[in-house]
């Protein structure tokens, strides 16, 4: 016999009326937001890796000299504080032709200069004395294809050199401590994938950190979607249970309905992601915006995310109905308060003790260990939250003097898990805020802003080069103080290396002009500035700052959306009791204040706790990394929490018109 489940589910869904439709639309909307955000997170994680892969050809793939067909020197120069990666290539005479590097159709001939579109634009925009004169003079620049670039905004040049050119000489590739990842010379025979550039190598790892912290709020949002309309569904299905439907049929109907709604929403989110790819690609991260293809996750990932969100919503809805299957009367009358057990507290304390014991041994932990501990914090709070909400409800309930507070407190202790879900997004976002606000890695090295450094072979060369530098700077119209540094002189950008330092006042344009003017004096090496020396640290700091800001903003948005959805769902689910209370004269303000307090009370206690935990975790991480703590982040933290809390309250308040509407009056019938 054909199963009646699907036809009956379809019939009940269609006949759910306007309010049923509202619930379905809200749930589908949340599923759409959830799948959209998950897809964006997957896209950015994968895309960051793809971008890094596009830079691996630039680090020379060293081969034995006898096998080498060319010399590659990859270096970095800065203009307007932005890095320009320069790949100098020289074909060795009497050797096989070297294959073309990515993005080019052939190996560049001496004097040929190929530039990325963004660099071409900059070359056109800036005076030659600030940038173009750093490269061989040429009538036209060739264009580097996308295969050579991590981002359409990246500044990259490939320069063909003669074998005897200073730019590919051994001196051009000599390594100092600050050259790591920025300058490297090697004999090559092609362009195999080697190490990613310093500007993209850390991108994926940083993104993953943000993704880990963001996943839970998004999961909460999707779970909230699954619980939308739970009370309506419970009543309806409990009635069906009483009418003789089997538990399996009830669960199958719930699963079918929520899976249908969830899949529709998740697909809508996937479509939105696909449609918005060009807009997403324009958002800058690290070296700049994205090629659209880098952010396309592919059909398997798309299908996996849609399936995961649908499954999450279905499981969430089915979990809510577990008790219908066993005790239909109990659920229909909401007999059982959903209590929490003290085991949650014990587990939380155990985790804290473990972390205390692990970090309190004097030795520094590895970063991975501390990240694992942070994950443990996170999970522990997930267990601990409902228990705290339950106790808070009981304590506040005992002391409440006003009706709104009493109603809120009783609601908290009646369904602590539900209340926790409402605030968990922001509470965990508080953890993120606390973590990132103090975890921006600070570099304590001396800063020599305004200095331009030229390395020389020895002290004698330095004196000679200093004279030439004065002339070159004078000719370029740059006023600067030129001095010679020695091995004993550590108080300069050269820090103990023989060379020349030009102190250039007057801002970035003057510095760029000075770098360009001094380029011919560097024996094949570009003169460098503070930006070059601190590039590795600054890159990490900048990436963490970008990811932390994005994580905070998204966490708060998702948390506010979760809170708003749950609040609207609660109003719809409790419309009968709210409506009757209002008919009996209960002011709307009391019901509304109770709803807000239901959120504010756990939020105030728990968000404070998790924020402190996040800050503590970040301090431990900083300790492990041996870096300073970003104390100014405290201001950012306070602002973030205030804005997040306000957004959340605004989201809850947004359902006030709905509360007013559903409690407006008795059914307009002639009876």
């Amino acid at each position: 016999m054909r199963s009646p489940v699907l036809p009956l589910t379809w019939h009940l869904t269609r006949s759910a009326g306007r309010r049923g439709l509202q619930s379905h639309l809200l749930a589908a909307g949340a599923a759409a937001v959830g799948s959209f955000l998950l897809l964006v997170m997957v896209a950015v994680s994968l895309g960051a890796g793809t971008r890094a892969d596009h830079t691996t050809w630039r680090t020379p793939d060293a081969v034995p000299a006898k096998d080498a067909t060319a010399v590659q020197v990859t270096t970095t120069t800065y203009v307007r504080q932005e890095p320009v990666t320069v790949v100098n290539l020289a074909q060795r005479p009497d050797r096989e032709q070297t294959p073309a590097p990515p993005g080019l159709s052939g190996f560049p001939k001496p004097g040929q200069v190929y530039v990325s579109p963004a660099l071409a634009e900059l070359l056109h925009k800036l005076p030659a004395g600030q940038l173009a004169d750093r490269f061989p003079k040429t009538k036209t620049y060739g264009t580097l294809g996308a295969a050579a670039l991590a981002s359409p905004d990246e500044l990259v040049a490939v320069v063909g050199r003669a074998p005897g050119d200073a730019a590919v000489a051994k001196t051009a590739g000599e390594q100092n401590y600050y050259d790591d990842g920025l300058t490297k010379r090697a004999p090559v025979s092609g362009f195999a994938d080697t190490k990613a550039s310093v500007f993209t190598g850390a991108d994926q790892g940083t993104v993953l950190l943000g993704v880990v912290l963001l996943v839970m709020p998004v999961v909460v949002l999707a779970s909230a979607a699954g619980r939308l309309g739970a009370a309506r569904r419970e009543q309806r299905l409990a009635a069906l249970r009483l009418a003789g439907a089997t538990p399996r049929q009830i669960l199958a109907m719930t699963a079918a309905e929520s899976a249908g709604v969830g899949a529709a929403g998740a697909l809508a989110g996937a479509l939105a992601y696909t449609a918005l790819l060009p807009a997403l690609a324009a958002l800058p991260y690290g070296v700049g915006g994205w090629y659209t293809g880098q952010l396309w996750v592919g059909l398997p990932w798309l299908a996996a995310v849609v399936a995961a969100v649908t499954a999450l919503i279905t499981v969430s809805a089915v979990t809510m109905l577990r008790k219908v299957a066993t005790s239909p009367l109990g659920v229909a009358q909401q007999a059982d308060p959903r209590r929490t057990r003290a085991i949650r507290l014990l587990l939380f304390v155990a985790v804290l003790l473990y972390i205390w014991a692990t970090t309190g041994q004097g030795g520094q932990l590895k970063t991975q260990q501390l990240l694992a501990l942070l994950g443990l914090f996170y999970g522990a709070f997930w267990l601990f939250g409902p228990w705290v909400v339950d106790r808070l409800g009981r304590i506040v309930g005992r002391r409440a003097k006003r009706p709104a507070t009493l109603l809120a407190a009783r609601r908290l202790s009646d369904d602590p898990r539900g209340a926790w879900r409402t605030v968990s997004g922001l509470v965990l976002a508080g953890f993120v805020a606390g973590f990132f606000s103090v975890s921006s890695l600070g570099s304590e090295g001396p800063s020599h802003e305004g200095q331009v450094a030229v390395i020389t072979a020895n002290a004698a060369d330095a004196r000679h080069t200093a004279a030439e530098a004065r002339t070159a700077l004078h000719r370029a119209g740059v006023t600067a103080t030129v001095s010679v540094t020695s091995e004993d002189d550590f108080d300069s950008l050269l820090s103990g290396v023989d060379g020349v330092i030009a102190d250039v006042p007057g801002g970035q344009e003057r510095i760029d002009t000075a770098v360009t003017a001094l380029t011919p004096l560097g024996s094949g090496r570009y003169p460098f500035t503070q930006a070059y020396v601190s590039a590795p640290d600054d890159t990490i700091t900048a990436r963490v700052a970008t990811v932390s800001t994005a994580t905070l903003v998204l966490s708060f948005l998702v948390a506010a959306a979760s809170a708003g959805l749950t609040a609207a769902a609660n109003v719809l689910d409790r419309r009968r009791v709210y409506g009757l209370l209002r008919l009996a004269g209960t002011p709307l303000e009391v019901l509304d204040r109770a709803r807000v307090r239901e959120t504010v009370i756990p939020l105030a206690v728990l968000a404070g706790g998790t924020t402190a935990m996040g800050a503590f975790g970040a301090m431990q991480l900083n300790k492990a990394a041996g870096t300073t703590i970003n104390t100014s982040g405290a201001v950012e933290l306070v602002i973030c929490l205030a804005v997040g809390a306000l957004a959340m309250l605004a989201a809850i308040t947004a359902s006030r018109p709905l509360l007013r509407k559903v409690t407006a009056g008795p059914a307009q019938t002639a009876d």
Partner: protein
Amino acid sequence: MSTVLAGYGLVKKYGSTTALAGVDVEVRERDSLAIMGPSGSGKSTLLHTLAGIIRPDGGQVLLRGERSEMGVPPAEGWGRIDRLGENRLSALRRKRFGFVFQFGQLLPELPAEENVALPLMLEGVPRGKAVERARRWFAPLGLEGLEGRRPGQLSGGQAQRVAIARALAVEPDVVFADEPTGALDQNTSAEVIRLLTSVTRASGAALVMVTHDADVAAHCDRVLHVRDGRISNYSQYTVA
């Protein structure tokens, strides 16, 4: 017994449907009045209009001891409540009326005593005193020992008795009951209605009740039969 609430010439239309077509009704102190009629006859509309939940399109609703919003009251000591603003109506329903609905009026997360104390707290009575006053209603309604139970832990009849206690807790002038036994079995229904009428009368309040059950209506002093928005019949019982 003097009149405490009255409606004269009440008219209410929903689109082209006339729910009330000029109804006159008076409710006296300690009076219990049942409103009966078939579905769609206008009986619930009449109750809602008298209770200030629905504003009539015509006629007036007068409540003794109420100040009139319109200025000069129509008679000494009377106020016309059908023209009051929503806030004043809401306060009036809270202070001077009590309500018992068919089901679902109790907050599931509050214990019974707090459900009963809630309207008192809304009136500014301190929580301790409100709960103490609420508990006084439990014995007369046969609810002793159930003060700490939540609505979900009560039977249907017990929950309705808690609802009656809540309606009476503010010591109202009139208790409105809309199908108060509609969700109960016959035996429980008889018990609940006996308590509702007797305790309400003992408290000094009047009772206006909508029901389609003649046995339930028989517990009231008077019965109004409504059909097509008009009073079709009027009967009076002698209640022991």
